[in-house]
């Protein structure tokens, strides 16, 4: 399966927020948190589209 690497540029404050979120048990590490965010954000947009087309 083809994979793509996206190199995020984040400052220390953004990383701190990510690390505090990780410390709550939301995801095991920074990369996993970003991928979780992408999946949930995309799912929310899909659900919104479905709701608005009803």
């Amino acid at each position: 399966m083809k994979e793509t690497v996206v190199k995020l540029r984040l400052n220390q404050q953004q990383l701190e927020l990510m690390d505090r979120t990780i410390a709550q048990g939301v995801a095991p590490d920074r990369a996993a948190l970003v991928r979780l965010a992408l999946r949930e954000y995309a799912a929310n947009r899909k659900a919104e589209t479905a709701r608005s087309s009803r």
Partner: protein
Amino acid sequence: MTTRKIISEWLLEPGTGKAIELLKGQILRIEQVEGGQCADFNCFNLHDYKEFMHCGRTRTVHGFHPTKGTFMWSAPPRERAMLYILEDTFGRNDVLFPRCSAYVYEAAYGFSVHTNCHDIQAEAQREYGLTPDDVHDSFNLFMCTGVDADGHAYMTRQTTKPGDYVDLLALMDVLAVPNVCGADVMKTSNFALKPLKLTVFEATEADLASVPKTPVLASQRTPNDFKNPIIKSDRALRRDPDYKPEFPNTPIVLTELPITLTAEEIAMFNAVKLTDIYGDDDAAALRDILFSWWEERFLQAHAGAPAIEA
């Protein structure tokens, strides 16, 4: 229910205001006498006038029309709840408009002198040594306002009746300054100036128990935390030759975080990324998704507003 003890009463005549020492646990009732009258209101920390009610912070937290169950906040960096709106029988107030001023009446209507909330506030608070420069934007009680489709604030007439009132409970010792709005050539008070009744009560245990707890945070700073706690006492601004900037969290340093996305995740990403804003900068688009998601999932207040649940 326990009856509140009345501490003092005033009748505010048209064109006037009154500076009142309202201590923590006391309630100021601002009440319609004839109906249809806007009241402007401001307040200061009684022990440090540099802490004052801030409409900007208040509107960010509670919207353009604060009413029963909301707070009046002080300006950053204090950002404390100064007053709690315990009751509001009409339910329409405003923090969009600034206080009306002499300039407004001269520029728009040609008056060389006209009752106006800025000057009334200034004259009322002069009793406590404050100057006209110390007047801040007012909380406009009973004022019916909105925003039109072009983004301009507008005001319209009100339908308050005699006896309608707003109860403001002091959460700290304040100098409260209500005034009868001076606008008689605008819709604000239905084109007439009428008196308002003021009553100060001692809050009951039930009143005090009804106030939601707000957080006490390290970011609510006082002069003890300021690098410069001295109030400037002259008017000219001069550069401090010894000044060395100490901005927090600087320098801002960027770190690269590689994220490996599967083909399925790339398809999701391509479906939702904001190419109209970020073009082909996928890193910026993914960063946007990360923090937009965070807001959706974790933010407890409107974006840009602090959470106020303790």
